[in-house]
């Protein structure tokens, strides 16, 4: 049963059964990249730029904090606030660079999808395209989970820095505990991001297996029609 699917060129696709473990759709033309791959192609560079700004900025904040400590630690509130702000800016950088890596992996998957389709199209056969495999969906889910688990602590670090009002010991201890808790959550976010990247790379293995198999089928079809 033919279905209209939204893809880059709005080409109608039909799901088909293959004898192996690959789930594909067929179409008359290349489907191009899917929506996440198109978004990834646009966003990887801005994310990288954001990371390259955030890392030195965080280091400058750390140097300021270090100089305050070295000067005799009279302004303990500023020192505690800068600890939170340095972590917030640093992990904005990690959020951006890990997003950029995920987008770059998605971009590679887009090249396989788009390029593989165009090769089949130029060979004059019907185009088979892999449906989005489960690991690719896992990559998107883990990226979003990781992003939230880093972004929320980044915001809370800023809130915690603003909440330090006085040099009272209880206030500073509370700030220290907040730092500890937020540190744990953002590290978990980084781990989720990295596992998502693993799943994305695992999807590339899947796509390479499919393309190595299917290009032989395309050659057989072209050979028999000549």
């Amino acid at each position: 049963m033919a279905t209209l699917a939204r893809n880059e060129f709005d080409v109608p696709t039909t799901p088909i059964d293959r004898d192996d473990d690959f789930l594909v759709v067929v179409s008359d033309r290349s489907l191009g990249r899917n929506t996440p791959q198109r978004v990834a192609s646009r966003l990887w560079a801005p994310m990288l730029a954001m990371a390259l700004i955030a890392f030195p900025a965080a280091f400058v904040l750390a140097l300021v904090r270090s100089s305050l400590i070295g000067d005799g630690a009279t302004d303990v509130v500023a020192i505690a606030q800068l600890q939170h702000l340095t972590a917030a800016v640093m992990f904005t950088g990690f959020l951006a660079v890990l997003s950029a890596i995920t987008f770059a992996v998605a971009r590679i998957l887009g090249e396989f999808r788009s390029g593989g389709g165009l090769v089949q199209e130029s060979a004059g056969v019907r185009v088979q395209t892999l449906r989005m495999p489960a690991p690719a969906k896992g990559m998107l889910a883990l990226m979003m989970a990781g992003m939230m688990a880093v972004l929320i602590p980044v915001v809370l670090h800023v809130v915690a820095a603003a909440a330090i009002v006085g040099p009272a010991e209880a206030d500073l201890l509370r700030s220290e505990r907040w730092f500890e808790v937020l540190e744990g959550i953002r590290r978990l976010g980084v781990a989720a991001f990295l596992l998502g990247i693993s799943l994305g790379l695992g999807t590339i293995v899947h796509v390479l297996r499919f393309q190595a198999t299917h290009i032989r089928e395309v050659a057989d079809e072209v050979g028999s029609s000549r």
Partner: protein
Amino acid sequence: MSRDIDWIKRPGRGADLRTGLRERSIGLALGAAGVLTVAVATIGNLTAGGNPARAVWTFGATTAGLGLVKTGIAIVLVGIVLRLWLRVDSVKESLARMKGRTPPGGVRTGDVETPFGPATSAATSPDPLPIHRMARAMWLPALVMGVMAVAVGFVFSLAASAQDPTIVAFRRWSALSQGTMFLGETFLLAGISFLLGTILSGLREGGGEVQEELGVAVKTLRMPTSAKAFIALMATGMMIGIAQFVLYLVGAANAGDPGFVTTAAWLGPLREVGLGVMLAGIVLALHTIAGALGFQFSRIRELIATGA
């Protein structure tokens, strides 16, 4: 290719369709184990209640967990390298039957412009670049050193957590743990970067091999700016990783000096900047791979359409 050190053996032509799947499964299992380790450490963080001994233990467990995930990523990349070689064999065999009739007149050599950047056209496959040789030889030593340093650093973090947080020995073990673990993370990212270099090398060599065997002009992309920037960022990140390790060693040797608190305030962020710079390099390596793939698909279409 086999003249140089190369830790990944190219699979034979009749290799199993499942080649690369074992590496993918191992890599993903390591990744899942790493995330679980980090989750346990996060619970430790949530319940630490300002205890510095607990904090140093959770730091060690988290860094070890992240190290496991990175090792998993490296192993999945090995699976990709293996599958890329099988792709070369498939494309070579299939393109011989699909390509158009090659026009007479021989191969035109020299520089050519492509939508993917400047390229060269030659009659034979290009030799691997020195940086590609280095990547193929270095990824495994870097990975092994990374795993070892993370494991040793984790033991140091356990030693620190067993000390009274008010004594000098605690600060010494803690400094050793931080420096060694981040040196390990640096080497793990270097191993991943070298594997990405190995993939780029495989794409260049495999693409050349296919074209040479078909008897057509061997078109090869020149090294793009993004690849050069990738190398620069990776080298910078490695230097920062090694420098922070040396500075932590100095700190551990002078753990009784109150001035070390001042140094530690910028040394911690510095080691994170080092990792961030290496990750930025990895983004550029992936971007370069995407460009190389786009060029290859375009060249395959050109060969099908024109035979040259």
